């Protein structure tokens, strides 16, 4: 049975303000999709909503996950249940957890994701096996061994955080991965390495949704589909050539072709600016 993540007519509000206004997306395991769009169009919101961030309220629509021979109502699941069902989000701005070592955090995470039925307090995967695997993955990503002993994202540079997200992706091997600007904050070489790594980790085995402004991350992860988000909707879907066009020429054509969504986008960013000026953003 095919494994599919299906998003239908998804509406999401933050603090009562609508951000997503009817998003439709079908992501099959093995496919790579690019999601592009101007800042503030709702791309990150989609990622958070898929994972179940408590601050992102789904007001309409469904997310379904077909996997392991069953159909899961994703919106009814806790974020950790979604993770254990095989959904992963690489954060644009990962949280730091002071005092918790990367290796301990990842050992716990890896155990839970690989044994979704594990109860709290039950054994973690053996330290020896875990260390060996972690070390191999870190070498692959050209990460210093010291990384594992550092506290989760604490004092990491922008690039280190992104590499740490990719390391987690490599260890957790999800069925579906949303990569939210995993290329931002990385220099050219680091983006190339990230792009290669994602391709090696994912291969044909994952459904990947790559949120990006650039085309470098897509170099080794050529998308079958490119979606353009504007004003909280996906307004256009094309092939890999669409990603190249947007990277080179920007969103003027899109805005002109979809004046209604462009107006929504303008209104959203205007109210965002007003809120920021009032200090409530």
């Amino acid at each position: 049975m095919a494994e599919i993540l299906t998003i239908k007519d998804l509406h999401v509000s933050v603090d009562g303000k609508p951000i997503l206004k009817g998003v439709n997306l079908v992501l099959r395991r093995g496919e790579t999709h690019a999601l592009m769009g101007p800042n503030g169009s709702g791309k990150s919101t989609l990622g958070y909503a898929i994972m179940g961030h408590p601050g992102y309220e789904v007001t309409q629509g469904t997310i379904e996950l077909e996997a392991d021979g069953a159909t899961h109502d994703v919106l009814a699941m806790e974020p950790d249940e979604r993770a254990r069902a095989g959904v992963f989000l690489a954060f644009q701005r990962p949280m730091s957890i002071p005092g918790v070592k990367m290796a301990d955090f990842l050992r716990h995470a890896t155990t839970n994701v690989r044994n979704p039925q594990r109860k709290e307090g039950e054994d973690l995967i053996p330290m020896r096996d875990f260390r060996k695997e972690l070390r191999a993955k870190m070498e692959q990503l050209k990460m210093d061994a010291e990384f594992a002993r550092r506290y989760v994202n604490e004092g990491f540079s922008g690039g280190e955080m992104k590499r740490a997200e990719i390391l987690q992706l490599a260890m957790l091997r999800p069925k579906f991965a949303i990569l939210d600007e995993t290329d931002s904050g990385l220099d050219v070489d680091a983006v190339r390495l990230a792009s290669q790594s994602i391709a090696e980790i994912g291969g044909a085995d994952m459904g990947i949704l790559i949120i990006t402004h650039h085309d470098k991350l897509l170099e080794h992860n050529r998308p079958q589909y490119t979606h353009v988000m504007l004003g909280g909707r996906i307004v256009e879907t094309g092939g890999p050539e669409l990603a190249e066009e947007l990277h080179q020429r920007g969103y003027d054509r899109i805005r002109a072709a979809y004046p209604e969504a462009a107006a929504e986008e303008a209104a959203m960013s205007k109210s965002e600016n007003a809120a920021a000026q009032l200090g409530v953003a």
Partner: protein
Amino acid sequence: MTQTIVPSGFTQAAFDAFLAARREPAWLTAQRRELWEAFQAMPLPGRDEEEWRRTDIRLLRLDKFGLPVEGTGGAQLPEGVLTAGVTLGGRTATLNSVPVAQQLAPKWAERGVVFGSLDQLINEHSELIRRHLFTRAVNPHADKFAALHGACWSGGTFLYVPRGVTVDEPLYQLSALQGGGSDFSHTLVIVDDDAEVTLLAETAGDDTPSLHCGGIELWVGAGARLQYVNLQNWGSGTWHFGHQKALVGRDGQLQWTIGALGARVAKVNQHVGLIGQRANAQVNGVMFTEGRQHLSYHTLQHHEAESCQSDLLYKGALQDHSRIVWRGMIKVDPNAQKTDGYQRDDNLILSEGARADSIPGLEIEADDVRCTHGATAGRVDDQQIFYAQCRGLTRNEAVRMIVAGFFQQVFDRIRIECVREALGHAIGRRIREYD
């Protein structure tokens, strides 16, 4: 088997009987009598006093407790948690302030180390103890509890390490309370110049109402090093009043770690005096409270000499309706130039009804100093919880991990592994569902 203690109250007759049963040097008896009078003359502290403003002791009935009585020992001693897997150089234990065990490895005794019950060593080391007991460290006139302790201390622990001797096995002290007893233990530690030692102390008890009125005096000589850990782990019915002070001499180093898990109400004065040049004191605090526990800590880092360093880090996590109060002061005397002083108190609020008060303070009379302080109190960060959940950790697991991480910064400073482990396990056991 737990015995029931018939409280004698703190009457003149009870005190006279207590004195009569003891065979002690005359100077000590005179000191006890003087402090007994001071105790009787002083009122219980009231909430109009700054130190007691946040600590309510109106439900304390001193007459429900009494002086330590010989023969109330003998019951099964509760297990401590601090020393799993550690080879100890010696140990002492008291039950309801009565010495029940003391032992020191012969190799340390041969090198002149003295360790055991203060009660039992007082005659043999009368002059040494007299020079240090309630002289420059703890002030027995500080308040009514200090005076009561000065008059009635019993059991207790005495540790003396001669000049230049390094004791590389930790020594251990357990103070236990059972069946509604009282604990008046006094700890006197003298680490002579260039000597080094580690003392691990802990308390244990059942949940019956009981009283601890204690004192701790630590003397760290020139170039000496003392690591001292005291874990307050009384049962939930104990009233805990403590006056604790360390004096650190020239080039001396003190690492003082306190853990606080137990007691119904605790009011502690923890003072460190840096009295010789380049003395160094690191103070670590780990607290976890639950139910309606109330812990109140009043710390003083007193810089009395030049170029000394003091660094205090307290971390507390609070559950249910518990409360932690910390008032910290760094005091720098006019001559204590080149002082480097730091104090920080962080609290993690795990339940809506819990409350932490952090009140840092500086009193600086020298002009060439660096003194800083910080305090934080907050809930577990929802963004951190979400991030961990996105990696497959349940909300509960995420919170446990974040709380453990919160304490890690202070654990990183504690070099004694068994202490880190004991505190980590105790905290892990206590964390419940977080909402």
